[in-house]
């Protein structure tokens, strides 16, 4: 039996996904510990929380662009940003901790599914029913992640971002819908269906004597 070595790109992606899976698992364990400490009031109200604002902010800042020995006047008008809480109240930190406890397992799951898929491809098992199931699970997990992100960001907006007040900047109300995640899920789902056709062709090829 001739053993064909997988292409270098596949082997690199496989090793990379192994490293990412290891790191994200460590992050997940750290988040579990973090949540335990949060719920035992270890941090009190002293957490210095940095969190992403789900909406963009409007502001006006004049500046210069140095290009081709020219000074071009520009204005900064919109930006994505984070907010920093000084001594975050425990009830806010707990909610963020809980959100992390939900979102990181999605990351672990996605990386594990992707790693298993790449491992199968690396071993020459590309058009198999096993891989179709993996691709479908990847797509459904991505849809789950998208749903959670959209709901969480909306809650965050109405609960916190909407009530923020600054002197110089204006918080917009355009909450992103994270359609990129949904389109990726759709693409993977379509890919799973292409793989179903591939499996049928592979089976026909294998059973042609």
């Amino acid at each position: 039996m001739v053993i064909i070595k997988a292409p270098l790109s596949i082997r690199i992606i496989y090793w990379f996904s192994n490293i990412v899976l290891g790191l994200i698992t460590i992050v997940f364990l750290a988040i579990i510990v973090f949540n335990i400490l949060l719920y035992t009031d270890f941090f009190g109200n002293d957490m210095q929380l940095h969190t992403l604002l789900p909406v963009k902010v409007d502001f006006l800042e004049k500046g210069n662009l140095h290009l081709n020995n020219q000074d071009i006047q520009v204005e900064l008008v919109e930006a994505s940003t984070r907010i920093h809480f000084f001594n975050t109240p425990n009830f806010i930190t707990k909610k963020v901790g809980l959100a992390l406890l939900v979102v990181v397992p999605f990351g672990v799951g996605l990386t594990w599914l992707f790693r298993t898929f790449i491992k199968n491809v690396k071993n020459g098992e590309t058009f198999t029913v096993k891989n179709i199931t993996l691709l479908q699970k990847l797509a459904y997990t991505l849809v789950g992640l998208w749903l959670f992100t959209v709901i969480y960001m909306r809650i965050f907006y109405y609960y916190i971002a909407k009530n923020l007040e600054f002197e110089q900047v204006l918080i917009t109300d355009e909450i992103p819908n994270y359609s990129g995640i949904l389109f990726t899920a759709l693409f993977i789902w379509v890919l799973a269906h292409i793989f179903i056709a591939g499996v049928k062709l592979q089976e026909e090829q294998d059973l042609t004597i």
Partner: protein
Amino acid sequence: MAVIVNLDVMLAKRKMSLTELSAGVGITMSNLSILKKGKAKAIRFSTLDKICEVLDCQPGELLEYSGDQH
């Protein structure tokens, strides 16, 4: 499948084993077994050619249309 492969019948007629046929046509035992059990989805002309040559028969003697389709 409505088409039946009469490989076992032809092997019996020629008093030949599957191993001998495998060596004669250069096709693995597992592939010939798939063909014999009627699990094959298709058969190449080159395969049919080799089997007919070794068994000294016509393709019509190997393949038979039974009529009842599943």
